[in-house]
């Protein structure tokens, strides 16, 4: 099918170089137009923060696109010297290129296995190629199937299960406790930078209010301004805890700020539901003994990281079934492509056989005119059809199952000669 992939990923190229090869904004359609104009081929580009890959295809040609030329194109297009990037580029042809794209779309080649963004990025690459008019028969089939593969891998294996960032895991725990957030109070204790991302995730839940407290009132004001919250004095920490449903603690205090005894006093004053405490400070701010899973659920950095690692480990266990799906899909793609490619030949072959059958049947019925009943004629017609189908089954299957190079042309041409078919 003459498919070629040339690219670089987080596995082969450092970020400093990858940044230079990014096809962002107007660069992407420009590159697609340039590729199709320069090499007369189909083209698609998958460009993400972790990879830049060019897929080139020529449906009818006998000569495959040259990887070296595409590497030169990359260097020229981005105005970077070829030598530093040449060593980090990889190229794959036909079956290997198909397998690679399916692995990429199925997130098996991602930095974090099972991450959900890559399927969308592959889809975007396909849509860009469509918009630029650079996707032809091969790339249409390839990318459409790649998106199906991504869906199959995601739904039929557990590779995308769970979250793998500490802040997402924290929010998952919050959701295990609370269902509704427009009546909830989030309390932020401290102004640690580690908590910024988690606070961002918590804000996306749209809580009723966010309270911020810090030993330094200025810092509390700063954080409160950044999250549309209300700064409260440090002395009111206990009162705030009585009102809080979700607590994010990120102080830099050397000792726990909340002992069990102090917290028991707060619990006694509370009439609200379960309090979720995300203690991502190191050293910890809350005494771990206050966690009971009922009135208070306390998760510290170690808990969240443990879940993160466990999720990644579980995802890795799904790699093998995902690879099996990809192998199936690669085979299916190849068979489908061959069937399409050989479709006209198979149609000719079937038509030729059908003409021969009709001619033989017409001769036979003419000779036996008057000696056959309608039933006999039907039976003979059926028998001839069956014979034809049995004869053609072998050659048609052989074409569909034909192995790639080097015997491809021999088999195809032999059949065309044997049955006097024309390309």
């Amino acid at each position, binding site marked *: 099918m003459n498919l070629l992939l040339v690219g670089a990923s987080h596995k082969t190229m450092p970020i400093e170089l990858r940044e230079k090869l990014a096809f962002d904004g107007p660069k992407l359609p420009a590159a697609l137009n340039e590729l199709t104009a320069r090499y007369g081929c189909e083209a698609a580009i998958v460009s993400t923060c972790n990879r830049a890959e060019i897929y080139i295809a020529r449906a009818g040609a006998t000569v495959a696109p040259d990887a070296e030329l595409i590497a030169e194109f990359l260097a020229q297009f981005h105005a970077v010297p070829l030598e530093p990037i040449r060593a980090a580029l990889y190229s794959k042809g036909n079956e290997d290129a198909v397998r690679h794209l399916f692995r990429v779309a199925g997130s098996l080649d991602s930095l974090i296995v099972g991450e959900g963004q890559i399927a969308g990025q592959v889809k975007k690459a396909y849509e860009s190629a469509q918009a630029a008019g650079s996707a032809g028969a091969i790339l249409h089939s390839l990318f459409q199937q790649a998106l199906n593969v991504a869906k199959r891998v995601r*739904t039929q294996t*557990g590779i995308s*299960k*769970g*979250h793998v960032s500490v802040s997402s*895991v924290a929010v*998952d*725990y919050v*959701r*295990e*406790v*609370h*269902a*509704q957030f427009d009546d909830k109070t989030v309390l932020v204790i401290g102004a640690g930078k580690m908590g910024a991302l988690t606070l961002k995730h918590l804000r996306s839940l749209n809580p009723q209010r966010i309270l911020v407290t810090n030993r330094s009132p200025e810092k509390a004001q700063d954080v409160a301004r950044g999250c549309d919250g209300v700064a409260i004095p440090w002395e009111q920490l206990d009162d705030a805890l009585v009102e809080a449903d979700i607590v994010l603690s990120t102080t830099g205090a050397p000792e726990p700020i909340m002992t069990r005894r102090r917290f028991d006093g707060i619990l006694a004053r509370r*009439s609200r*539901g*379960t309090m979720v405490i995300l203690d991502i400070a190191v050293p910890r701010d809350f005494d771990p003994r206050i*966690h*009971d*899973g*009922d*009135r208070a*659920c306390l*998760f510290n950095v170690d*808990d969240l990281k*443990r*879940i993160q690692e*466990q*999720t990644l480990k579980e995802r890795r266990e799904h790699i093998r079934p995902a690879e099996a799906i990809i192998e199936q899909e690669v085979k299916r793609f190849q068979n489908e492509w061959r069937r399409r490619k050989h479709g006209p030949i198979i149609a000719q072959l079937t038509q030729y056989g059908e003409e021969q059958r009709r001619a033989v049947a017409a001769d036979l019925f003419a000779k036996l005119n008057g000696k056959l009943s309608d039933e006999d004629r039907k039976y003979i017609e059926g028998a001839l059809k069956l014979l034809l189908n049995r004869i053609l089954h072998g050659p048609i299957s052989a074409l569909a199952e034909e192995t790639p190079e080097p015997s491809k042309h021999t088999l195809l041409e032999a059949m065309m000669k044997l049955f006097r078919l024309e390309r």
Partner: protein
Amino acid sequence: MQSFFEKISILCFAASYGVAFALELWHLFRPRPILRILALVFGGAGLFAHVVFLIVQCLIAEKRLPLGSPTGSLLFLALILAVFYFSEAIHHARIAWALFVLPLVLGLIGLAVVLPAPSEAETWRSFWSVAHGILLLLAAVGVSIGFIASVMYLVQMRRLRHKLPPNQGVPLLSLERLEQMNRRAILLAFPLLTAGLLAGVVLEIYNGIEDWLSLRILSVVCLWLVFAILLYLRYFVHVRGRQLALWTMFAFAILVVALVSPHSFMQGGGP
């Protein structure tokens, strides 16, 4: 057609619910959407057979099964809970309702089978007996749903206590939703129970008090008291979460005793 429906037995719907439960259990270990769909199909088939069975038994069969008998009450309660399972499984498809509701449904059906069948064609003879039976049945539905919510709450709480990974294992509602479900079930059940109890008192007075200390009456009164304590604890002492769940489970245990106890009012007439 009528004879076909008359052939439907308790075993038919109990087996369907059992298969639905087994499929859901299977889905827990090997998640496949088809298992969920099959579980729903079997659950739906069980529900259909259950409805047909009760219609035939209560309206058509020669020896009618009254709602007021322990067997009848248990089968009707099981039916309403099966309807609850079916609708929730459709509306909140992510949650493993079958794992919590169907064992209860099967347990109630099992109790109905074990209990002796009504000895004679007992019928409700008055407005008060009908009101008493229906109100208590609806209250029982509330208590049962509260019980299911409580069990789910304790399972979810245990998962959180052990800090198990979120979104893994048995899919459950959040603690807040489960507590809310429990609270609503109790709030629904309490007035129904009170009204049902008052209807029963009227009925007993009208029939002439035979045995105020029968197990049935005692257990229903006890259930009412537990409910009153439960509401007091919830709204005046602000007891929540695990303790509330345990109280609800205790109330359910008393309900089961009340349900399996023989009825005295069934034989009597009414105003």
